[in-house]
């Protein structure tokens, strides 16, 4: 087991390095030259103190200084990548990259990326975690019920609902929720995470936050229900037709016991990847939800950074996405072992 995990971790590291390198090369294609901009700006501020003739040479000097400072004094993508990682020294001989805890600098907020990601991550995780818990609490019992009472009126109704829900793009669901609850009924605020200008603590903060995240959470739960419900029902149906379930019924076990311990255990196997993926997904935030409800989470920050060309932030969030994807794959595989004893992890 330990060897397997170690092997997988090595593999993850390799893929991670490859993907981040690919992403890094992608960003190199984007037209942005921070050193150039900063050099221009500094030159502008020095405008009067330098004679016009020397301006060109002064600019060259400043440009080189900034290039060296930002580590862009070479065109070699590999070196740039290594510098970003913190494995290759800058001009001043020091390494300053990811391994040193420096994920870059946000031009837009003029602050280290790690610092501005914090609140966004918190917002995303509050909403995501609450929604994910609700989704699981609703879909699992409902999916089991539908599969057990297959073909009943309840099942058909829920099937229809989940087919429509599954085919509805999330943003249409969100538009409808905003329209209904925020615009017509006015139960919840349209957007945001807290009352503008407020600075609550303790119980007041909880109340205020609850008021603001209710609608996004409800919308997120509603939008996520359909697809998970479908999968839960399908895998439960498969499990119910297994021989072991028939045997359990034949030997006279109560149907509750048959369903919950025999069938559900088997149905869980295909669901593991979805549950694990869902929980890891909340770290990344829901891009569409955050955009529609104006929640300053990871997704919205990502969108904003793309449209404002704030490359270090994009890169950092993208790295998080890739990392989450890879780690959740690993956790999923490990969970298979937990759920299904037949899965022998001894490769």
């Amino acid at each position, binding site marked *: 087991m330990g060897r397997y995990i170690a092997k997988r971790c090595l593999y993850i590291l390799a893929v991670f390095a*490859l993907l981040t390198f690919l*992403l890094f090369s*992608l960003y190199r294609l984007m037209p942005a030259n921070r050193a150039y901009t900063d050099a221009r700006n500094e030159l502008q501020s020095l405008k009067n103190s330098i004679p016009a003739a020397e301006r060109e040479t002064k600019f060259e000097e400043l440009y080189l200084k900034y290039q060296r400072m930002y580590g862009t004094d070479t065109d070699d993508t590999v070196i740039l990548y290594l510098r970003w990682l913190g494995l290759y020294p800058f001009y001043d001989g020091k390494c300053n990259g990811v391994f040193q805890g420096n994920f870059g600098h946000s031009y837009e907020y003029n602050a280290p990326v790690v610092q501005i990601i914090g609140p966004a991550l918190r917002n995303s995780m509050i909403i995501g975690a609450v929604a994910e818990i609700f989704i699981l609490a609703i879909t699992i019992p409902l999916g089991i019920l539908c599969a057990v009472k297959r073909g009943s009126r309840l099942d058909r109704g829920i099937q229809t609902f989940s087919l429509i829900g599954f085919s509805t793009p999330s943003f249409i669901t969100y538009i409808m929720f905003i329209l209904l609850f925020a*615009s017509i009924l006015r139960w919840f605020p349209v957007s945001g995470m807290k009352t503008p200008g407020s600075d609550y603590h303790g119980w007041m903060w909880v109340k205020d936050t609850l008021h603001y995240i209710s609608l996004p959470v409800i919308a997120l739960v509603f939008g996520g229900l359909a697809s998970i419900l479908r999968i839960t029902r399908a895998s439960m149906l498969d499990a119910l037709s297994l021989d072991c379930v028939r045997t359990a019924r034949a030997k006279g076990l109560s149907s509750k016991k048959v369903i919950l311990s025999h069938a559900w255990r088997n149905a869980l196997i295909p669901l593991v990847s979805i549950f694990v993926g869902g929980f890891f997904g909340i770290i990344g935030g829901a*891009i*569409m939800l955050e955009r529609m409800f104006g929640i300053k989470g990871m997704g919205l920050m*990502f969108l904003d950074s*793309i449209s404002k060309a704030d490359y270090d932030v994009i890169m950092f969030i993208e790295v998080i996405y*890739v990392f989450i*994807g890879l780690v959740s794959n690993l956790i999923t595989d490990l969970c298979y072992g937990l759920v299904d004893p037949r899965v022998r992890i001894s490769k």
Partner: protein
Amino acid sequence: MKKKKENIFHILARWFVRMFMGPKYEEKMYKKANKNIVIDDEKQSVPNDSELIVSPAKQALQGFLDNKFAVFALFAWVFIFAFVFIAPLFMPKYSDAYTEVTLKNLPPNRTMMKVPEELKNDIKMIDSYGPFSVGLSNAGKVYVWGCKKLGASGMDVEIPEEYKDIKMAMVAAGVDHIVAIGEDGKIYAWGSDRFGQYGRSENAITSSTIEAMPEELYENGVDVAHVKKLTCGYQATAILMDDGRVYVWGNKQTYSNMDNFLGREDIYDIDFTLNYIVGIDSKRNGIFTGTRGLYDTAKTSFSGKGEKMFTFLNGRKINEITATTANMCILLDDGSIAIVGDSVADTVDVPTLPEGEQFVDIKAGNYHYTALTNKGNVYSFGGDHYRQAEAPAKLQGVSKIFAGSFQSYAVDANGDYMDAWGFKGFLLGSDDVGADIWERMINGGRITMTVGAVAVIIEIIIGVSLGCIAGYYGGWVDILIMRIAEVFSSLPTIPIMLILTSLIAQMSLTTNQRLMMIMVILGVLGWPGFANITRAQILVARESEYVTAAQAMGIKEGRIAFRHILPNIVSVILVSITLRFAGAMQTETALSFLGFGVNYPQPSWGNMLSRASNATAAKNFWWQWVFTSILIIFVGVCINTIGDTIRDVMDPKTNSER
């Protein structure tokens, strides 16, 4: 008969037939080349009492046909798919970037040309500048029709209760206000007054960009017998008196030359374009705007060459001026007409009259002109986007004409309604720039469907061939390809697409190249699914006898993979195709919604929704997202139903359970 070499389409068609109708049917259709196929052949050859052996494919088809909803979904989807590709052919006037400021945010309404029944026998005048028209009967009663509720506030331009019993003498409509002069000389107005369209509100008097209604008019009204013309512009109004005095008021931001007309007493005729007030002064030898040289060339037709006004007139006088949004038409005292200003897209040129016929009256809509001749014939010309410049040929004996914003009305000598032509209204409403939602929905559907289809085709090409290679050859090839697939599928789809599309946004591409790039991105990122399925199926098929037999016969490996194994796994791929198509469509819709996929002005279902997605627009302009959303959901339900059903009927386990 010479055997034809099979091309790829032929092969695909044959597989399709084989899949749904069985190998026997395929043999008949493709090997014998015999047109008279007896389908019942098979049944006849089997004794009646023994059970028919049905091929799995046939059974699957039967299962599919048994599911009525799936059959309906298939037909509905094929219909929509065909419709969005065929219908644009019947929309020759559609263009992506079309905007119309006077028709924005209109609800579904087809009554813009519907003159009220009571007015039909008694028409005195009709006027319109925007989505609604106002009419006046000889009895002095005002009627309003068309889109009466305007803007986000839903402001109503129906005549207020307290004005209903007042006898009106003249009436005119702007884009959001109506001005009427009563028989008593008082000026009545209703609708929006935010930009000083009427009244003397605090805002109108103090604001420097608004010219408020003159106080004497507001207090005392005018001498109605001597009013020569009442006309409204975008958010402005002008009253012209017989003696050349002119009163102008309204939004000065739209009409920056308004100051030049204030207090003038030598105006012969006046009208509004979209940005200028144009007039004729008492000399009647040129167009007066207050700016010298503006509108100083005239031409006899839209395509003709302009001449200096002075040489063009050559001593003739201008009798009348009438203006559309971009150009104006002048009627000269010898009965000829001339065009001044720029022409717009979709223009029908000025007709050449037969010998002896002369223009006696001309009216202008927002883009078109309708002219009446001394023989009672009517001609329409000018902007023709809504077919408003196509007068019915059979119309004769007309004595009066009126032009609405995009409509024309013909009235006979008794004041009876004869005919109307032009724009009826938007079937599904208009969006925030005044484009037709129905047309954009169809054309957007074409783009969304194209993106989905092409993306899936790219996915199939990459995924299936790599999957075939991996599954068939195994070994290190398999490992390599599957590792690459794993890397691709662990990329977060939407974020990567956002980055790639924002990257291509910075390249200088034409819209079609951009669209192509989006399809390629969707396709290239989505192939691992197909590769996995194909590989898994091939691993199963590789162990089967016919492959061993083919190998024993010494057939090349590539041929075995693509010609022997692939046809047998095509059914499984088909399920993936339908579901992936739905997926690609949804991804494109989401990307465009976020503003990273298909960009305005090119329509797509996603970007049509993005501008109606805030709370205000979603509530007030519901038609801007409801219809498109319903269509998206409906198409999604159809495709998912088809995919689900195919999967169900092909899965022997679910079959046996039935």
